[in-house]
């Protein structure tokens, strides 16, 4: 493309708005992180740097609740992300390597259904479903619901990656008498790795972060970190909640950053 004069492209003020945008996006998170290190009992006054609220999360009066919530959150996130990544990988193989077929559009619609239906509607529907079939709400119902709504988040990076890989690699392997299974595990899977890893990580975060659906399908007494935090916040924001929030947001940011660099590595193939 011909080089276009930069002066024509740029608009005064757009840079300032972008910076404002970043400030708005990050300010609340930065502020909460800072205040999570506040020594004061009150959330309003700053009384110096301290780790006491982090200690409180692990040893304070609410530590048992947080520990079991963290256990539930992380085990559910790992299992839901693993299951949805496997399901999404199989689906992507059919959608991207299965030629043209009639049910392709319908399948894609079904896979993206959790993204189109408002989350609160999915939550209500799932609650009604478990109630109708007489399934007691608890850990298992949360897990099943998470597997379902994580599928599109795992599917999108995986299918995008597979579309970028020419099938001539697998064809070449099969011309040289590799079975299709070998071509799948030895050729396609290694090439797919970055897509699968970022699909897994996104599914993991989405599961770890979910509040609305979990809140509807959890049984009494079963909490995940978001539902436990929501329960506490209803009585006012406390410093230990800021500490636990800071830890949780750090986990999310680390995961997204890993996912970013993994998927970036594949564009340099």
């Amino acid at each position: 493309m011909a080089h276009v004069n930069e002066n024509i492209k740029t608009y005064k003020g757009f840079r300032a708005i972008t910076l404002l945008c970043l400030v708005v996006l990050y300010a609340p998170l930065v502020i909460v992180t800072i205040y999570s290190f506040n020594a004061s009992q009150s959330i309003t006054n700053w009384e110096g740097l301290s780790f006491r609220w982090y200690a409180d999360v692990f040893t304070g009066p609410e530590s048992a609740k947080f520990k079991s919530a963290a256990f539930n959150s992380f085990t559910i996130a790992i299992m839901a992300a693993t299951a949805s990544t496997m399901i999404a990988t199989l689906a992507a193989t059919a959608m991207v390597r299965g030629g043209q077929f009639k049910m392709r559009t319908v399948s894609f619609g079904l896979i993206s259904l959790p993204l189109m239906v408002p989350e609160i509607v999915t939550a209500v529907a799932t609650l009604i479903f478990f109630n109708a079939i007489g399934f007691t709400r608890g850990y298992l119902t949360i897990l099943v619901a998470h597997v379902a709504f994580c599928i599109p988040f795992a599917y999108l990076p995986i299918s995008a990656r597979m579309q970028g890989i020419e099938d001539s690699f697998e064809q070449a392997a099969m011309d040289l008498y590799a079975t299709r299974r070998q071509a799948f595990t030895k050729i396609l899977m290694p090439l797919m790795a970055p897509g699968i890893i970022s699909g897994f990580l996104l599914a993991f975060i989405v599961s770890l972060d979910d509040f609305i659906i979990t809140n509807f399908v959890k049984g009494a007494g079963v909490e995940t970190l978001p539902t436990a935090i929501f329960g506490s916040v209803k009585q006012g924001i406390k410093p230990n909640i800021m500490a636990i929030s800071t830890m949780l947001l750090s986990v999310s940011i680390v995961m997204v950053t890993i996912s970013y660099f993994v998927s970036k590595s594949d564009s340099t193939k």
Partner: protein
Amino acid sequence: MAAGAASGGSARADTYKDARGWLLLPSWAVLGIFVLGPVCMMLIYSFLTKEFRGGVIWEPSLAAYDQFFFDRGLFGDEPPKLEWTYITIFWRSIWQAGAATLLSLLIGFPTAYFIATRPENVRPVWVFLITIPYWVNLLIRTVSMKFLLRDQGPLNDFLIGTGLIDSPIHIVNTNFAVQLGLFYSYLPFMVLPIYAAVERYNFSLSEAAADLYASKWTTLRRIVLPAVKPGVVAGCILVFVPSMGSFLAPDLLGGAKNFMIGSLIEEQFKGNAGNWPFGAAASMILLTMVLIILMFSARQQAKADKAGG
């Protein structure tokens, strides 16, 4: 060679043609049973009779929809009048979501445009910076927003400290706080599609406009905006749809006066109201509205594709 590279193995690759049924089976099963099935079940529940402590009695009834739209007096024997309570809640949700969408557009468009006009190698970094907060727990982001905006919160402290204001501005528990919360929740959904559209835009057109003495703002309005319209429409829908059914922002930032659909639905299942068929009916009405918007946008997109192709 070029043709092979372009196909990218996508359209013509059919290595797994005979196995696709098996490969799709798990996703069909999980999503069919645990998402599509439940939505159908919800439709049925909306036509059942309520049981007082939550749950339903299996007796067909239109009571839920009737309660939503009509007021028949305390004992249900008066001639039906239009019931405004729930229509008002829906209307407020639409209005709030619309305001949040407009706010996102005003901030999101310049941001997306700015990022798309950066050198190619730094664009992904900007996009990454914009998307990081989206991946942070929505609950934590909303709580953080509330913490920041409180009457005694850091924002008011800062404004009072600099002498700009004398007494704290009440932001929490207003409509504006909810709009701000929704804007904060879904802003990346506005930026990303507009960014993608501006990135594809051919800037020679802007240059041509400038050569013909169009001012920069005229060029933006008459040349750039129409060209990137599909991205703008997509962004608006992606912000509007989840905003309308949101629960956390109105619940935590809005207070009781700024009730939206999400809270109305939640109350039927978690709160004391406990009217499951009514909650299911309200969810169905919300879902129908969303599906109409999505179908409309799909049609618009198809039209734009046709015009572009």
